[in-house]
């Protein structure tokens, strides 16, 4: 558990101590924390135990080991708000990260049965399929796949999707997205995707799937977003009077 009981294994207790020092600002971003040896001496524990605690935090993206230099506090997670309808770069700008996207694929395809069903259109209709890699401060943060029926926005063919976010584009063309259902899973990536995201093969990432609707309740966009968990935390606000029995996508 994430508790701080004195009965908990030592490496867990130490992990929480370090995590708390990062959260409280005692250990500051991009500054090194005490060395493993110093930590071992301070708390009177084995170095291997210290290493275990630190390894866990490195994996979570809170610390980074730099060979020959030390252990740095990252704390550079980008908070993304799960409730705001904002495109990737918009969210990033708000958090003072330099964000840009690279378009890997942009093509037209047949909807096929699965997407015909999701969009409520014939499997023979065409869809735009856009695959992009999103970067923050030159590091890949997420892989995005967006599907939009051709008839929703035929102009998309000529729009440079590396410059504008989908939400900006929708705004320009008066497509109003009024709500979106989003789900979050943890999935493992295959070798190719892992490489694109700059993580190890079989790493787990968060998969966000969302279905966006316009005011007439038509599905406008289906998107999948594979996001590195070591770079993002997701914040959700909830209220006593909100969205209780809205249900979610089936």
């Amino acid at each position: 558990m994430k508790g701080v009981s004195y009965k908990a294994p030592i490496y867990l207790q130490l992990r929480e101590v370090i995590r708390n020092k990062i959260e409280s600002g005692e250990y500051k971003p991009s500054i090194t924390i005490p060395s493993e040896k110093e930590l071992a001496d301070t708390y009177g524990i084995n170095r291997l135990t210290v290493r275990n605690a630190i390894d866990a935090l490195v994996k979570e993206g809170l610390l980074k080991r730099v060979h020959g230099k030390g252990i740095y506090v990252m704390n550079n997670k980008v908070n993304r708000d799960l409730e705001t309808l904002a495109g990737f770069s918009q969210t990033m700008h708000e958090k003072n990260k330099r964000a840009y996207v690279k378009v890997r694929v942009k093509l037209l395809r047949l909807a096929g049965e699965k997407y015909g069903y999701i969009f409520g259109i014939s499997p023979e209709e065409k869809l735009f399929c856009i695959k992009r890699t999103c970067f923050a401060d030159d590091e890949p943060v997420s892989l995005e796949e967006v599907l939009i029926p051709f008839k929703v926005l035929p102009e998309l063919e000529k729009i440079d999707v590396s410059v504008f976010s989908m939400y900006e584009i929708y705004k320009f063309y008066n497509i109003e997205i009024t709500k979106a259902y989003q789900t979050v899973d943890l999935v493992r990536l295959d070798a190719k995707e892992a490489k694109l995201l700059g993580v190890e093969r079989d790493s787990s990432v968060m998969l966000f799937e969302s279905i966006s609707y316009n005011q007439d309740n038509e599905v406008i966009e289906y998107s999948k977003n594979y996001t590195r968990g070591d770079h993002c935390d997701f914040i959700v606000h909830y209220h006593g009077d909100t969205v209780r029995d809205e249900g979610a996508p089936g």
Partner: protein
Amino acid sequence: MLKQFRSRPLDEAVEKIEHYIIKNKLSPHTRMPSERDMCDMWDINRTTLRSAIQRLTREGKVYSRRGSGTFVATEKLLCNLQDLKTISDAARRSNRKLSTKVLDTRIIECPKQISKKLCVPLGHKIFVLNRLRLLDNIPVCLETMYLNYERYPTLDKHDFSVESLYHVLGEEFGTKIQRGEQTLSVTYSTEEESAFLKVPIQTPVFFLRGISLDSDDVPFEYFKNISRSDQIRYASVLREHS
């Protein structure tokens, strides 16, 4: 002009399988047709089909048993993050049996990090509740809650394996959740967490933590949840800011 493409055979195979499950409303643990039958049905080759099954396995949609085929994976419990008591409501809604095991309750001296979250001074009495949630007898979530014991001095007299904490807070103390904020991220299960959740050590799991505030905007609860991503899926409804 944009070129038109047929999708990659692999993507196409993945979509066919996903759609097959949805269209036929296959329930969890149903066996899929044999590889040979799927290949014939959709006119795809064996290698592509296998890659598609691998991909769907990684995404937790199907699983394979050596020698006996491919099966539809367990349906994950969908928990809306904007709901207040996500898991019990979600279980009820999807007709699944939620049971609760109290692992530990104790009263501690408020440490610094909890003091900040709950806005109470250091050394204040804090009631800690550790529970394991099981869904149809499968352990899915480890919950730790921290509450101000001086505000709720009878909490240690209740049995929270059968009583709802929020119900007790509401009935006995008039505390109602007004709003809250929670943060979701990925972590890797520790030895202890793994033992409770019955997963291998270092399994990627959801880590959800946050605070709940009452009608006076006073934080009354801080919680940390570790949950299995093969059993739980989180959801949220996004709306345009008015």
